[in-house]
Each structure stands twice: as structure tokens, then as C-alpha cells.
């Protein structure tokens, strides 16, 4: 006896076995991840889901038949793995990297024997499905084995250590008073990429990125903690509390990290302060006239003297604010993309904003020069 789920795939209903559902879920998740950042990614996803539904419909004889895992596996083989589909649009530099010759190590030998075993199992596969990569380990954060960010889990996989041992070690170091490991951990969290696609997970474990392995990895994902979190299996209140706690703590840590990043990077800080001050100045001039500026605190004004004509001075201010503001938005978007899963601005709008920002800065320079050339007294900043 098996439990089945009803799913709506692209407007069509299917009865799906629970294990088949998990496989479908992982597959679509990986697909979505692969296309998320591409232009028109959502549209491609819709098309693919639609095709998936069509193919499933072809495979079942009547609407009442339950979609089994075998059917899903066959359909996925027909539609293709994310790496196969997305790989056609942009060349993956990782593949070249991975194909670079490596000195044989213990891990590689292990990977080789692994691969041989799998090849035995998949002898019926056509030969062109084999991609010849030597397994080279890359450091990832392991989302399936994590307490906070999966840094230690990933490190443990990378070094072939026990993650619990590594965690205990870190805790001991922490208790012993070496608080510096916290920022180190945070930086690792930010810098080390999370293993999200099946290919990522394979290269994390140093297994060769072959079609068989990727397929196996997608299938294996079922038993992993990540899938467990998404599944409908009941969890105890304590477990749910722990989940929520980890999620909130992780989020807060990341916010903290971004703030630290902003504070630590002097360029960003200066840009933020200058932008803020300029905005205040603009409003002061707009509503209070030049006199209002004098009442503003600080001797900041003596640093950015605008000589000459009031109108040009104001134009300079506006251009400077727009320029710095746009560049700042681009920067913040970049930081957010790095730190959170937020998609950020599309590359095209980023480019446009960057261009407008730079032009504004250039214009502000021109305005400044023009205002300096006008033979009037400096009354913007008394």
C-alpha cells in the first residue's frame, strides 16, 4: 500500500505516489534554481512544467492511473536534467575546471571506484551520456547537513571529517575564549557558496559529474534533511521550534553581517553618509532657501564648497545625489544577492542604473565647473 498525493501540474491534476512526488519536487526545484537568474527564466519554467505535464499524460493510460516513480524517472530522462537543459545557453566554466587533470588522491580513487560501480549498474545507458570528469572536490556549504549555515557540514565533507566532531571542536575553541571564530564563520558563510544543484553536491563530495550521478543525486535527495523539512511528515513541537529558531537566528546573523560589511567597507559608509547629507541639503535648499543650510549642524559645508551661481550649484547637488544614489543601490543589490537568497535586480536594469549613475556623476562634475566659471558670488553656501 502506498500513500498518493494529488498535484496540479500546469493546470492538470495528477495522482502521484509519495516517492514520485518527492522526486518531482526535487527535480522542479533544481530546474527552477537553474533558470531563476536567467532572462525569461519564469517563462522557461512554465514551458518546462507544461511539457512535463504533457509527457506524464502520455505515459499514463487514463486519468485515474497513479504516476509512479518509474514514470517520473523516465519522464525526467526525456525532458533532461537541469544541467543538460541550462548548459546549452551558457558554457559552464566549472566543467573546464573540473576536467583539468588532477594528481590521483585517495578521494579520487574512491570516486573512481564509485563511478565504476555506477557504470556497471547503468550499462544499458547510451555511451554519449557519460561525461568524463575526474572528480575534484570543491568546498560548498552543505544545506542538507547544517546547524546554522552549513559551513562546518560542508567543511566536514570536504575534509572527510565527522561534522559533529568539527562542531564540538569549534564550540571548544569558542568557549576557550577565541571569539574571533565568529566573524571567521560569518565570512565563510558569506563567501562559500551553498551546494544547491545536484552538480554542486556532486562536486562537494568529489564525485564525478556524470548524468548517472546527477540522476542518483536527485533521487537520493529524498532521504536528506532538506527534503524532510519540506515534506508533510509530522514534526514534533520541539523540532519545529528548533527549525524556526535556526531560521530566525540565521536571518538575524545575515542582517548583522550585511551591516558589518557596510560599516567595515569605508567606501560604502562614506558613500552612504555623503548621499544622506546631500539629500538633506537638497531639501534644505528647496524649502528653506540658502539660509537653511547655515543652520544645519557640522562644518560639512565648508568641505563641499560650491562656488558661483545658485542654479548650477543646485543642478550639481541633484546630479551628485542621483549619481551616488544609483551607484549605492547597485552596490546594496549586489550585497543582498550575495548574502540572501534575494534575486536582486536583473543584470540589465543594473547596467542601466550603473550607466545613468555614472553619467549623473559626470554631469555633476560639469555643473560644478560651470558654476565655478559663472562670475557670481557664492551664495549657495554662505
Amino acid at each position: 500500500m502506498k500513500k498518493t498525493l494529488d498535484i496540479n501540474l500546469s493546470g492538470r491534476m495528477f495522482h502521484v505516489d509519495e516517492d514520485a512526488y518527492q522526486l518531482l519536487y526535487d527535480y522542479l526545484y533544481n530546474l527552477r534554481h537553474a533558470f531563476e537568474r536567467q532572462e525569461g527564466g519564469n517563462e522557461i519554467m512554465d514551458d518546462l512544467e507544461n511539457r512535463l505535464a504533457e509527457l506524464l499524460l502520455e505515459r499514463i493510460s487514463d486519468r485515474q492511473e497513479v504516476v509512479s516513480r518509474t514514470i517520473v524517472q523516465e519522464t525526467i530522462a526525456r525532458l533532461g536534467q537541469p544541467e543538460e537543459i541550462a548548459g546549452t545557453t551558457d558554457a559552464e566554466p566549472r566543467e573546464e575546471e573540473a576536467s583539468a587533470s588532477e594528481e590521483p588522491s585517495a578521494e579520487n580513487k574512491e570516486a573512481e571506484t564509485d563511478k565504476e560501480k555506477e557504470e556497471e549498474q547503468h550499462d544499458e545507458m547510451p555511451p554519449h551520456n557519460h561525461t568524463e570528469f575526474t572528480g575534484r572536490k570543491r568546498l560548498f556549504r552543505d544545506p542538507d547537513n547544517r546547524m546554522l549555515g552549513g559551513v562546518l557540514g560542508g567543511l566536514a565533507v570536504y575534509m572527510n571529517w565527522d561534522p559533529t566532531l568539527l562542531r564540538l571542536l569549534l564550540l571548544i575553541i569558542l568557549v576557550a575564549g577565541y571569539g574571533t571564530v565568529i566573524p571567521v564563520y560569518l565570512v565563510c558563510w558569506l563567501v562559500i557558496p551553498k551546494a544547491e544543484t545536484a552538480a554542486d553536491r556532486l562536486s562537494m563530495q568529489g564525485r564525478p559529474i556524470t548524468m548517472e550521478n546527477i540522476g542518483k543525486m536527485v533521487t537520493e535527495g529524498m532521504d536528506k534533511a532538506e527534503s524532510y523539512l519540506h515534506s508533510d511528515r509530522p514534526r514534533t513541537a520541539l523540532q519545529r521550534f528548533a527549525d524556526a529558531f535556526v531560521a530566525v537566528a540565521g536571518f538575524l546573523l545575515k542582517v548583522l553581517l550585511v551591516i558589518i560589511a557596510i560599516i567595515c567597507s569605508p567606501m560604502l559608509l562614506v558613500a552612504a553618509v555623503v548621499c544622506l547629507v546631500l539629500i538633506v541639503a537638497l531639501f534644505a535648499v528647496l524649502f528653506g532657501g540658502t539660509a537653511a543650510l547655515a543652520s544645519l549642524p557640522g562644518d560639512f559645508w565648508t568641505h563641499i564648497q560650491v562656488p558661483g551661481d545658485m542654479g548650477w550649484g543646485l543642478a550639481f547637488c541633484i546630479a551628485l545625489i542621483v549619481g551616488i544614489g544609483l551607484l549605492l543601490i547597485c552596490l546594496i543589490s549586489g550585497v543582498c544577492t550575495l548574502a540572501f537568497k534575494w534575486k536582486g535586480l536583473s543584470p540589465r536594469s543594473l547596467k542601466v542604473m550603473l550607466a545613468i549613475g555614472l553619467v549623473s556623476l559626470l554631469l555633476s562634475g560639469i555643473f560644478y565647473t560651470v558654476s565655478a566659471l559663472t562670475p557670481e558670488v557664492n551664495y549657495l553656501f554662505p
Partner: protein
Amino acid sequence: MNVENVKSQMRKGMLEYCIMLLLHREAAYASDIITKLKEAHLIVVEGTLYPLLTRLKNDELLSYEWVESTQGPPRKYYRLTEKGETFLNELQKAWQELNDTVSHLQGYQPDLTTEKLTEE
């Protein structure tokens, strides 16, 4: 150097051209295009087609309309735009040139070169 790699590179290079050729004759559903490309062994997995179609559409070489179908929800019906037609013409010329070059090279006799060299 892997024969399969080179072969798949060759196929990849002309995939857009083939899709446009198919749509030049008649408008079609994505599933029709897949069937034809699979018959010609131009694609291995079906999913490959969709990013290509979306890219061609975003470049305004293709357009589509939703057409009701007897079974299930409406489906996209792709056709070549005017811009696509002119684009295809360019590709046709390029392909012709390429074809000429290749057939020229295929009929090339190595001993002819030595003769020419000695003549000079």
C-alpha cells in the same frame, strides 16, 4: 578531443537555424518542433528546446499565440516574425557558404596541392 563532444557542438551551433527553418514553413507547437528535431537527432533531451525558444522570442525573431487544444489547457503556437524571416535569410546565406566550403574541402585532393606548389 572527443568525437561525441565535437558532434554535439556542431549540432548546438545549428540548432537555432533549424528551429527557424522548421517554423519558416509553418507555425507549430513546441511539441511538434521537438518531434522533428528528435527525428533528426538534433536534440537529445527535450528540455533543451525551451530556453532556445524563449531566447528567440525575446529577440523578437519568433512570436507565439495561445491556441486552445482539444485536450488540456491552451498551448503556445510559435511562428516566425518578419524580423525572423530576414534573420533566417542571413543564416541561409551563411549556411550556403559554409556548405560550399565544406564540400569544397571534402573534394579536395591532397596531391593537387603538391602539383600546384611544384608548378609555382
